[in-house]
């Protein structure tokens, strides 16, 4: 049993539920959500949240029950999120699209799955309750109930092969983050926040809590309307966005074909992936915006982001080709340091240059992390109350602008914001091709190097493994060789494979 909020050590900030409850009550007739053109006020969101609290009570749910609500983005989606964050249940929300890939393993993470509305049928369990929004009846109650259960929500990401990782986020740590970030970003009720990511992603959940606790209006396009993010954000008079770099690429591609004027945009934040130095300046130029730019770094296993770096988009663009924007300095309450990591001979050079594993100490680290192998409570440091240490698996270097990302330990990479384990992909491709030895490399695109005498088409491979893995992690190119290069111990040489790709690209 967790202690009540007031008794908890280090509880200097309100829990996130209290911040949200205050905003819902205060902003009343102001617009809270604009989803696919439908606008809902804070009063609408408050009433619907109360309905979900009453539903949870009737259904016998308590703050510690873990419920995944699957819904299309809309009033019900955000009311589920807010009710859970207020402590009616431990909430995890997801939109249908990315969830299908994760369906097989969700039972390990959650006690109950509820599907709201008419969403695809290949979701977690045939026995799941399917709720019509009309079944969540108007309760007639007027007040929100805020229950301090210690945790705010459980975020779930599907990972490379649809084996989800979930993280239980601390409510006070998230409240601390939301308070700090709202002040740092100078968020107000006059802001219009445009959400370009899937609303169920951990980046979008943080964005939603930041926008709604500030009284801002959160605009979410529906489905593939995100292809017109720049146009819709411009029409919406958007003042704030926090996007993954891939969304910036998309905005750039869109603005190059159709003019989009983001004159009202005052803050463009990035997160979720390494940020190419040239991208922010190009996005601002293409959308005729003078917004301030900030890079943010966090992970699924934390409440909000942990490092940040304000930068001049035009200044960083002038840096070396291929450079990335630094991750920056820790936010207040977070300690970050570099730890040595067990490298191999290929990484000696980087070790010499001061590269090491980014290690975080903070109450913002998740309370519990659950993978396919089971639940793992994160060990907290006894001397510092709620503070926990977390090794991120990210390699960084420290410079005048704080930390800079240098890669991942092992063979994990980020592709369009998704963590991808290349070793898992090796096995998947190898199994699909009848145990042929295979190595997948991430060059400009994913390339599979396969030991085979017969040619293999990338489309054929995609068809055979497309049901198992996310489409964004399917190799776009296949190179067949009679034998892959080996090290002296007989393992496939990753450096040798890189050389093969280089030679093929050069036509050698």
């Amino acid at each position, binding site marked *: 049993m967790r202690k009540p909020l007031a008794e908890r050590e280090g509880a200097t900030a309100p829990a996130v539920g209290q911040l949200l409850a205050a905003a819902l009550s205060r902003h009343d007739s102001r617009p809270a959500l604009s989803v696919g053109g439908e606008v809902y006020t804070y009063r609408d969101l408050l009433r619907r949240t109360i309905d979900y609290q009453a539903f949870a009570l009737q259904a016998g749910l308590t703050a510690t029950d873990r419920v995944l609500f699957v819904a299309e983005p809309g009033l019900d989606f955000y009311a589920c999120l807010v009710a859970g964050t207020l402590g009616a249940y431990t909430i995890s929300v997801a939109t249908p*699209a990315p969830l299908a890939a994760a369906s097989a393993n969700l039972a390990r993470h959650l006690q109950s799955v509820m599907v709201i509305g008419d969403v695809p049928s290949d979701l977690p369990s045939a026995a799941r309750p399917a709720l019509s929004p009309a079944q969540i009846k108007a309760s007639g109650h007027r007040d929100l109930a805020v229950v301090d259960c210690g945790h705010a929500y459980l975020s779930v990401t599907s990972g490379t092969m649809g084996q989800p990782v979930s993280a239980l986020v601390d409510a006070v740590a998230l409240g601390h983050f939301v308070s700090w970030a709202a002040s740092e970003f100078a968020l107000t009720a006059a802001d219009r926040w445009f959400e370009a990511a899937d609303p169920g992603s951990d980046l979008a959940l943080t964005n939603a809590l930041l926008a709604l606790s500030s009284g801002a209006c959160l605009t979410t396009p*529906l*489905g*593939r*309307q*995100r*292809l*017109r993010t720049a146009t*819709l954000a411009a029409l919406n008079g958007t003042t704030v966005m926090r996007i993954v770099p*891939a969304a910036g*690429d*998309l905005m750039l*591609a*869109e603005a190059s*074909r*159709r003019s989009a004027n983001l004159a009202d945009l005052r803050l463009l934040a990035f997160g979720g992936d390494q940020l190419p130095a040239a991208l922010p300046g190009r996005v601002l130029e293409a959308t005729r915006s003078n917004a301030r730019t900030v890079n943010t770094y966090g992970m699924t296993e934390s409440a909000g982001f942990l490092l940040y770096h304000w930068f001049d988009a035009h200044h960083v663009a002038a840096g070396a080709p291929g450079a990335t924007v630094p991750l920056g300095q820790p936010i207040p309450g977070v300690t970050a340091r570099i730890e040595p990591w067990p490298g191999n001979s290929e990484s000696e050079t980087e070790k010499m240059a001061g590269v090491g594993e980014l290690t975080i100490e903070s109450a913002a680290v998740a309370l519990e992390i659950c993978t396919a192998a089971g639940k793992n409570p994160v060990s907290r440091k006894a001397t510092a109350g709620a503070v926990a240490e977390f090794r991120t698996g990210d390699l960084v270097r420290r410079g005048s602008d704080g930390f800079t990302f240098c890669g991942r330990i092992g063979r994990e990479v980020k592709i*369009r914001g998704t963590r991808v384990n290349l070793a898992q992909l090796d096995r998947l491709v190898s199994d699909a091709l009848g145990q042929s030895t295979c190595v997948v490399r991430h060059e400009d*695109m994913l390339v599979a190097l396969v030991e085979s005498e017969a040619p293999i*088409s*990338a*489309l054929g491979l*995609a*068809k055979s493994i*497309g049901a198992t893995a996310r*489409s*964004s992690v*399917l190799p*776009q190119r296949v190179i067949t060789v009679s034998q892959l290069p080996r090290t002296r111990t007989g393992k496939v040489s990753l450096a040798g494979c890189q050389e093969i790709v280089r030679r093929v690209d050069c036509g050698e």
Partner: protein
Amino acid sequence: MTEQPWDEKYDHLVRSYCGRTESQDTIAPDIPFDLLGVDSVGLLGLIVDSEEVFGVEFPNDLLTSDVLATPGTFWQALKDLMSAS
């Protein structure tokens, strides 16, 4: 070779965005765009190029997962837009 349900201009256009097809591959109407290697940026390009080539404008409410699922569903929407204009 199976006859395609669309014209040559559309076939050329779709191929230019498919990251996983060779020139000899037939593009089946019902194969998902993501398996063909068409990502979000590719879909955006396909929409804009289709608007230019076929003289139509794609309204935002047609930007749905159903319409943008496969070359066949997108072609059907294009045909409907062309008929309507």
